[in-house]
Structure formats: structure tokens, C-alpha cells
């Protein structure tokens, strides 16, 4: 009887140790796999290695965003240069038409008015983004100084969205300006 109880106690002890080890593994597992799961364990224990993993991830996101933003800035500049070239050609054609006293037909005038309306709409949309990037970058610097890298990275994502919207609008503006130029050249 005594022996049986001792055996039961032993088995219980083994189970106890086993459950402890499982709990320990569950807590350690994701964080210990090369930092990839750092974001997951950040919620489990702040200040530990998991927190460092989250910081590393956020830093990586920031680096990635900055790289994309640099490329976008170059593309925006490129679109701007293209627009200046098309616009200068269009100015010459417009000036020639005015000097020659060219009169449009009613249909041509309606088409030109419609194209100009579309151009103005795109202009207004682009103008609506004015100052947004600068404001977001101020917020980004504040988060970064406070060490809140995750929110800093989220702000950069928003900056990229604005850059992408601008690129799309500028592409459309260039296409439309070219369309007006082609239309007037065909008169």
C-alpha cells in the first residue's frame, strides 16, 4: 500500500516537472527562433528579448520604408520634369494659335473646355495633398525621438501612400497635358 502511494507520488512529480518544462518551452519558443517572432512575444513580456525583437522589426520596417520613399521621391521629380517639358511645348502651341487668330469650331471648343476641366480636377486633387508629407514627417520625428519605432514606421507607411497618390495624379496630369497638346497640334 505504502509502495503504491510512493509510486503515485513519483508519477505525479514527473508529470509536474514535465508540465513545467512545457510551459517554459512555450514561453521561450517563438522568441528564440532568430528574432522572427519577436513581435509576437513582445506582448507576452515587455523588456525581454521579445521586446528587442519587436524593436528590430520596427527598425527594419523603417529602413524599408525609407528606401521606398527615396525611390518615390525620385519618380515624383521625374514626373515633374516630364510635365514641365510637355507644358513648355503646349505654351508655344497656345501662343501660336493666339497670334494666328485661330478660331475653333464649337465642337473643338467644347472638347478643349472638357480637357481643361479634367486638368483642373487633377490639379485640385494634387493640391489637396500639399503639406501632408511635411506634417507626417514631423510626427515621424517625434515618434522616433520617443523611441516608438512601431508608430514611426506606421507614419512612414502613410507618407508612402501620399507619394503613390501623387505619382498617379502626376502621371494622369502628364497624359492629359499631352492629350491637349496633341489636340491643339491637330487643329
Amino acid at each position: 500500500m505504502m509502495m503504491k502511494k510512493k509510486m503515485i507520488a513519483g508519477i505525479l512529480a514527473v508529470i509536474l516537472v514535465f508540465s513545467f518544462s512545457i510551459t517554459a518551452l512555450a514561453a521561450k519558443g517563438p522568441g528564440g527562433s532568430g528574432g522572427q517572432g519577436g513581435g509576437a512575444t513582445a506582448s507576452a513580456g515587455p523588456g525581454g528579448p521579445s521586446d528587442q525583437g519587436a524593436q528590430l522589426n520596427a527598425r527594419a520596417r523603417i529602413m524599408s520604408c525609407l528606401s521606398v520613399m527615396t525611390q518615390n521621391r525620385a519618380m515624383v521629380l521625374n514626373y515633374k520634369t516630364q510635365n514641365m517639358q510637355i507644358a513648355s511645348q503646349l505654351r508655344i502651341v497656345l501662343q501660336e494659335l493666339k497670334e494666328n487668330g485661330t478660331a475653333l469650331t464649337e465642337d473643338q471648343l467644347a472638347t478643349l473646355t472638357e480637357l481643361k476641366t479634367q486638368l483642373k480636377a487633377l490639379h485640385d486633387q494634387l493640391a489637396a495633398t500639399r503639406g501632408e508629407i511635411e506634417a507626417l514627417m514631423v510626427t515621424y520625428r517625434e515618434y522616433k525621438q520617443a523611441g516608438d519605432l512601431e508608430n514611426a514606421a506606421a507614419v512612414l507607411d502613410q507618407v508612402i501612400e501620399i507619394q503613390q497618390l501623387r505619382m498617379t495624379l502626376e502621371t494622369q496630369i502628364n497624359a492629359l497635358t499631352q492629350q491637349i497638346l496633341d489636340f491643339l497640334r491637330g487643329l
Partner: protein
Amino acid sequence: MRWFNLKLKILAGILAALLLLTGCRSPGDKQADKSAQPSAAVTDTYGATPGGGILPPGDGMTPGGETSQADASSPGGQTPQSEASQSEASPSGGAATAGSEAPASDGGLPTGDTAAPSAGEPDSPEAPASGGNDASTPGSDGMASKEETDAALEDILEQLGELDQLYSELDDIQDSDLEE
């Protein structure tokens, strides 16, 4: 003996509590695994950056195209109204200038001549002269007046000027922000 039984029961109770705790933690671990997947993806992206130096540009471009098209439709519907009011205003200006041209061609009879088209009797030989001016007025042969044309061309020029100014005012990231 009874003391040993009590000890055994306490041990079993602790064990049960521990097993219960372990069971409670497991959903949390599952959540942690879920949140770990996106962050792992970010790490992959970053891993590609220092090596290649360039991120896939396709990621940046596609979503923007969709949003802007949706945006383009909404303001576009509003602006034609304001445009229509402009084009309505210009024909009246054209009519005023056409009227002012008529006396110049008729020389000394400004008042009688302006009355002539409405009366249509004694000045009928002079009517073709004013009729010649009418050819440039809107709607006679599908041609817009010169004033309307000039105004439209001027509008385009103005819009180009506004675009130039907008491009110069658009903000962007600064080099200092890119230093990490």
C-alpha cells in the same frame, strides 16, 4: 499516513492547477504565432534591402493607381458646373463686341445702323456688312467666336501656370529624414 494522503491531494491539486494554466496559455501562444507571421515578412523585405538595395517597385505603384482613379471621378463631376457657368458668360461678351464692330464698318451712321438689322428696311444694303461680322459670332456656322477661342486658350495657359506653382509648392521628404 493521513498526513501523506493530504500531501498527495495537495500535490494533485497543484498539478491540476498547472495543467489548467497551461491550457489557458495555449490560445495566447496561437495569437502570438499569428502576429509573428507578418513581422517575419517584414524581416524578409528588409533582408532583401541591404543586399539588393532596391525594393520591388511594383509594390508601391499598383495600389495608388486604384485609389486615384476612384478619387478622380468624384471631383470631376463637380467642376464641369463651374466651367459651364464660365462658358455661358463668354458668349454675352462676344455679342457686345460684335455690336461694337458694326458702327466702325458703317462709318457715319452708328445709330441708324444699329437699328437697321431689327427693322430690316432701308439699310438692307448695309446689312450684309454687318452680316459679315455675324459670321464670327457664335452659332452661325458651327464656329466659335475668336473671343471664345482666345478665352479657352487663355484658360489652358492659366491652368499650366497654376500647375507650375503647385509643383513648386509640393512638399516631400528631406535628405535628413533619410539618414538612419
